């Protein structure tokens, strides 16, 4: 039987990799994919705790996280399409209309 903290460390590593992706990539689609990776790392913690506490609440939480992630991906990709149509670019550095 695999101990709980193995799962927690694995999801921490995957979450940190997702953070790296959000911080260093310059492509909006890849940034969105890194966010999905981070959400999945958290889902793994939920499921691991659900298993080791013997309660179903963690699995239900993952169910809702999936619903919210689907909505987030849809809206994010729609925004990316709208931005690409205006600027012909996916580089977040070039979106500086509200920056000073």
């Amino acid at each position, binding site marked *: 039987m695999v101990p709980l903290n193995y799962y927690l460390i694995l999801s921490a590593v995957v979450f940190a990799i997702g953070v790296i992706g959000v*911080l*260093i990539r310059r492509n909006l689609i*890849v940034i969105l*994919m890194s966010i999905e990776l981070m959400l999945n790392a958290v889902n793994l913690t939920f499921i691991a705790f659900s298993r080791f506490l013997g309660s179903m609440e963690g699995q239900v939480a993952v*169910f809702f996280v999936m619903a919210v992630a689907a909505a987030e991906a*849809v809206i994010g990709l729609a925004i990316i399409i709208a931005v690409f149509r205006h600027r012909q670019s996916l580089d977040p550095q070039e979106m500086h209309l509200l920056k000073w």
Partner: protein
Amino acid sequence: MDASTLIFFILAGLLVLSSLLVVFLRDVVHCAMALVAALLIIAVLFVMLQAPMVGVLQVMVYAGAIMVLFLFVIMLLNPRTLEQPRRAWWSLGGLLALLLGALLIAMLGKTETWSDPVAETQIFGSPEMLARSLFNDFVLPFEIASVLLLVAIVGAVVLAKRER
């Protein structure tokens, strides 16, 4: 080391590898493929943790629907130009993320495993138990999630519509 631990380590290695590929590959389509692999491995880990229903949902919703959506947008926009990496941000971002990862591991690594509350023979994690929990205790969040999905559909149509 028993068989399940060995399988866990193999899966963990593959998961970390495919996550790194998501972040460090330069072609967007390759990143998406690596993300599909990572999501499938996470689904296998869910099944190992006696959550078969969530594992199946993970394959269908994430690796299926959401990734098809991503690939569809990649094909639609067809961003051929590969991005140029910025060295300063690479080091700074990597350092910050490594710090975060080290903190998380230091905190979570000390978690103790409780004595196993779920016998392997029980039906823990079955669709029936998930549905009982979902429709008894979480009916209101379930309905709110459906409203959220409706709002997301309307929002996506409005946002992606061509302006006249």
